[in-house]
């Protein structure tokens, strides 16, 4: 195989890596917000459940969680597992795991909004939803961009954990190519891919930060 062919093969797997990345990012950012709200809810029971969930998701390896999501339906419910479920299991596992991290980031951001903002909004007659959507959330987003950027960069690299379920993303294919071609080229190509990917992510978040720097 020529270097070009190796790059060609890896190129196909990059689409899968990006799919894992984008689907996880979108779903876990949404799930995470919901989870943060449950975690901060007045109901002690709900809050404790969310707290326990976050604790487990952050306290156990993502690789293990992926295996549980993949094999769980078979071992627990006796359901038939098809190969097409592999990618789905990866997406579910990633979303569930990253939601826990994002929930804690949201929580820190929401907790940092001064109580005076809520009181001012209340005095002006804003409803709770209006206050959250128009007054609190915009300020939260500005505050959490740096930690979210951090987590997102980690996510780019974590997509490689999908090799656990033999999903043909960049890392899985790289390992196969290195073994079959006895070449170190796939490692280098994969390294460049992840680095450039994260460079784009970092530049994007820097841009966001700048866009929101019109106020303090």
């Amino acid at each position: 195989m020529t270097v070009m062919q190796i790059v060609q093969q890896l190129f196909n797997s990059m689409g899968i890596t990006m799919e894992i990345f984008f689907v996880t990012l979108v779903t876990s950012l949404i799930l995470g917000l919901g989870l943060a709200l449950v975690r901060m809810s007045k109901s002690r029971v709900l809050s404790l459940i969310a707290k326990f969930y976050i604790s487990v998701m952050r306290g156990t390896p993502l690789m293990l969680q992926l295996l549980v999501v993949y094999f769980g339906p078979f071992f627990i419910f006796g359901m038939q597992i098809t190969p097409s479920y592999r990618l789905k299991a990866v997406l579910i596992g990633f979303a569930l795991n990253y939601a826990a991290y994002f929930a804690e980031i949201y929580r820190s951001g929401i907790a940092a909004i001064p109580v005076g903002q809520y009181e001012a909004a209340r005095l002006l007659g804003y409803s709770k939803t209006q206050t959250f959507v128009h007054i609190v959330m915009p300020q939260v987003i500005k505050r959490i961009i740096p930690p979210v950027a951090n987590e997102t960069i980690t996510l780019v690299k974590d997509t490689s954990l999908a090799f656990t379920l033999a999903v043909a993303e960049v890392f899985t294919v790289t390992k196969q190519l290195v073994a079959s071609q006895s070449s170190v080229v796939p490692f280098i190509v994969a390294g460049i891919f992840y680095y450039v990917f994260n460079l784009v992510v970092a530049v994007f978040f820097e841009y966001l930060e700048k866009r929101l720097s019109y106020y303090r």
Partner: protein
Amino acid sequence: MRLLEMNHIKKSFDGQEVLKDISIHVDEGEVLSIIGPSGSGKSTMLRCATMLETIDDGEIIYLGDAAAVSRDGHAVYAKAADLKKIHNYYGLVFQNFNLFPHYSVLKNITDAPMRVQKRGKAEVYAEARELLRKMGLEDREKAYPYQLSGGQQQRVSIARALAMKPKILFFDEPTSALDPELTGEILKIIKDLAAEKMTMVIVTHEMNFAKNVSDYVVFMDKGIIVEEGKPEDVFNSKNPRMKEFLGKFEE
């Protein structure tokens, strides 16, 4: 016309009685100042009036509409829909402004009238600009709060409260976060509002201001009203606690 009546207000925090049977009332066009040492309960009184805190017992009546009534030694609040209506009667200016940092000056003032009161944009903007002109901030409408001095921020927050057209405007130590120079500019604004017969309740440490601008002064200490009346009477009171408090200010 009586705009606000608070009768026999009681409020405790964790068993600590902060308000012990306090009653005040405010008539239309009147300026009421509440003075007293820190911890006297005057800010709590204001927070109860604006319903940022709930009272334990007593009654709160705005323009004849009961927001809370006393029943069997406990305060019972009106239904949410009624409270929402009552809410429209008053506004509050905070000690530390609490402007929305992500909104421009103009948006800080116009957002609630449009979003909450559903008034038209043209009308709201015209009124907001008029308010800014009154506050001497006509050239700062595009600025963000962080770009303004404390005094300017407080003027924006007064404009924001006025834009809702409240019948009563409450001030919670509006100058306590400001240096003397900036304090002067805020006090002038409040004075102008008083001249326009705006009904106001002001919790303040500015004794001269309370003396000169108020129609009625309430002196609170340790959760009770020690002295109240016309400013000339209160500031010449023979009450030892009152004299001690004023003495400290004159030193």
